């Protein structure tokens, strides 16, 4: 992410729009920034920063150059290099100078005395005094980024930056797989945000996002968390986002969507949460049943948490049955999972529970749908059997 002074946006008619940089303008600068950084391997950070300033020159694009440099330098490494340990040298020099009295000539005498001790020139020692200052650190590894990759990060950081000012966020997500939704809600929880979910599978879900204290007053307290959420949202296949911003006292709206073609640098979520799920899905396909296995599922808002079944089984006759596989879990997780299933109150949910888990019938008290027990792998046929018991695929 970028510091706010490097953000660019326009505000018109109550709407804020980040100013994205097109490749024809951004790529030459990105290439220049990476080249300058590359040329400064084993050189001082201060020199590198001066060279970056020289690169921007008097160009009105200076902010773009600084933003690119900021993001690129986040991926570089610097190190202290000095013949004498700087803090040790400072202690010696400052103590001697204080004893001698402060003045230009006295300082020269002190450096001369220390020079004899370390077998170094006095002026070399003067430079070594502050070898540990960031500006004197030495560049030891350059960022592993292409100009295009750097520009993508820059544009994403611009889009994120406006969210620092967000007081609330509405995400409209259309028909996504369970894994994608799960990732989204996991990030919402991770960033300690709160939400309300509306909508249904066919028209998509609207997720209103803010934080605990948003109830009492509009606050930008959660803006940085919302900004950090954006790269995760990019992995959800189809979405629109509408944020309300408090931009320097002015209330404005901010819209983004999957059509903005932003690129995430967060790792892609795995297609399946576990091997159990992956195997079940693969074997279901081979079964050749009329029931189609789909990963786009219903989101059940449980007020403070959500329940997202692993799969949906859809019959051409119109029925949908959900499947939730409970495999290898920690006891506390298990307790919460059953609590969730109970609260979700779905009667068209098949709960598949591994016999390896220490689960008793009492634990399943109050769960509406049927339960399938399995050893090792979950057999698709066992689930199919239950579907038939439930009355098949008709409406």
């Amino acid at each position, binding site marked *: 992410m970028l510091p706010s002074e490097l953000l660019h946006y326009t505000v018109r008619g109550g709407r804020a729009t980040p100013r994205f940089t097109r490749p024809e303008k951004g790529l030459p600068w990105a290439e220049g920034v990476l080249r300058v950084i590359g040329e400064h391997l084993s050189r001082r950070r201060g020199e590198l920063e001066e060279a970056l300033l020289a690169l921007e020159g*008097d160009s009105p694009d200076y902010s773009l150059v600084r933003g690119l440099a900021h993001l690129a330098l986040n991926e570089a490494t610097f190190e202290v290099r000095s013949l004498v340990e700087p803090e040790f040298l400072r202690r010696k020099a400052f103590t001697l100078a204080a004893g001698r009295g402060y*003045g*230009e000539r006295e*300082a020269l005498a002190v450096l001369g005395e220390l020079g004899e001790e370390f077998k170094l020139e006095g002026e070399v020692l003067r430079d070594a005094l502050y070898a540990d*200052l*960031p500006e004197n650190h030495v560049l030891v590894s350059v960022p592993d980024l292409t100009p295009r990759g750097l520009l993508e990060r820059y544009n994403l950081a611009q889009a994120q930056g406006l969210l620092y000012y967000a007081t609330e966020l509405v995400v409209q997500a259309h028909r996504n797989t369970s894994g994608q939704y799960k990732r989204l809600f996991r990030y919402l929880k991770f960033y300690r945000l709160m939400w309300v979910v509306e909508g249904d599978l066919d028209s998509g879900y609207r997720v209103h996002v803010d934080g605990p204290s948003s*109830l*009492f007053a509009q606050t930008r307290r959660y803006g940085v968390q919302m900004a950090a959420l954006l790269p995760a949202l990019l992995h959800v296949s189809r979405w629109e986002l509408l944020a309300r911003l408090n931009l320097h006292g002015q209330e404005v709206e901010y819209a983004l969507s999957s059509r903005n073609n932003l690129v995430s640098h967060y790792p892609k979520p795995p297609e399946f949460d576990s091997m159990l799920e992956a195997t079940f899905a693969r074997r279901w396909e081979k079964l050749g049943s009329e029931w189609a296995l789909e990963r786009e599922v219903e989101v059940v808002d449980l007020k403070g948490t959500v329940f997202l079944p692993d799969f949906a089984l859809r019959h051409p006759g119109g029925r949908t049955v959900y499947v939730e596989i409970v495999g290898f879990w920690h006891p506390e997780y298990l307790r919460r999972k059953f609590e969730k299933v109970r609260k979700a109150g779905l009667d068209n949910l098949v709960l598949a529970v591994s016999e390896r888990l220490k689960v008793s019938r009492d634990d399943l008290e109050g769960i509406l749908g049927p339960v399938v027990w399995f050893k090792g792998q979950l057999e698709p046929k066992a689930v199919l059997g239950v579907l038939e018991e439930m009355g098949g695929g008709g409406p």
Partner: protein
Amino acid sequence: MAVLRFDRGTLLLEGFASLPPAPFEFDPRVEAYRAPAISYPEVIRVLRGQIRENRAPAYGKLELEFTPPHALYPHQQAALAAWRRAGGRGLVVLPTGAGKSLVGLSAVAWACRSALVVVPTLDLMHQWYAHLRAAFPGAYVGLIGGGYHEVTELAVATYDSAAIHAEKLGNRYGTLVFDEVHHLPTDFYRAIALFSLAPYRLGLTATLERADLRHEELPELVGPLVYRRHAAELQGDVLAEYRIERIYTDLSLAERQAYHQALEERNRFLDEHGLGLGTLQGWQRFVMMSARSEAGRRAMRAHREAGRIAAATPGKLRALEVILARHAGEKILIFTADNDTAYAVSRAYLIPCLTHQTRVKERQEFLERFRDGTYRAIVTSKVLNEGVDVPDASVGVVLSGSSVPRELVQRLGRILRRSEGKRAVLYEVIAKETREERVSERRREGVRLDPGGSGSRLVTGGSGSRLVTGGSGARLEFPGGSGSRLENAAFADQPILWDDLGED
């Protein structure tokens, strides 16, 4: 029956049979009632007897053995008494050097609750750490910030860390002490106070008023102004006498040419675009216009270059050398506006340099060695502006600075600690015929520190105050007398007698 919980800076009331009273509001996101954490004392009052379980506070009674470093001075006793009378909530304003920390320590001891001291800098963090360890032997003192995260019953946190972790810290402390409390009212830091249950809150500062007037939020966040004393009322008791000397240096011919060339370059741009720098709006327009073209970028660079020439003229280093020689053997603090100049001074004279980049251990070492006389000078950009104890310094040198009056008050406060027979002197080194002359004027307008003879007195750092000179001394008053903004209801000084210690 209902249960009260703390949830990320708020209070959640679950299972309440009827509609709970304000400040609770229904939260449809979790289908329960929610109130801001800061309203906890009020909530407990209105819900008394109606909740089965109060799971909100995670703080406890803190049994502390209190060994203050010395008996409280009358003004410290009076400040504490006033704070206690206000129910253990409120702001105490005392000048730098008047012993605010001891008021804070006494408040922590009196409240007997898990306590968090919030400070703006790492130096202050380590200073409070030392104070707390000395005053409460046997208690473990935790640090939150500066690479530490120890959420213990008695801890010191930086404003940054306390704000970042406000959602988690909010129920851990029953007492909050805000040092340099004027930092609190910003959008980010406010959360420390808002998200906390703490019934006991104390704000300490020497400079309460903020230019943006947001200090007016402090009564809501911390409590009312309960006690205020100006330096004039304490001088001689606690603070040293001082005088100010201004030293003018000439730019060299080459510097003068470069300075004027830079200004001409900038002024050409200003003229072409009809801009003036006399007002804040004029300056903002210049900033905006300068970003849009190469000519503008050049003009802004010229403007900065002119400032740099004036701030870093070798003439100033020569003036400094004269001062260093004149006060050989005395303890000297040198202030600069920027890090580069501070490091240049350090390299030239081998004087220890304190900036934000100096690591905590070395800072402590510098200050200790300055205290015990191993080092006789320290050069610093901004870190010593606020709050850190630097005892015994008797000479201050302002090589360059901003036009903010608060900064001058704070810098002066660094050298004003009283010791036997001490006479402090503050030098302002100003490049002649440059804009530094105006900057120096402007920062003194807020404080009006005219060199009123050998006995002039610094009085306060309030915005809009003025100096009244008379005879050998000078006195500072607020404009408008009794009708001034400072004396509205929320900020009125309560009439407190020096000997009235109050009873709990």
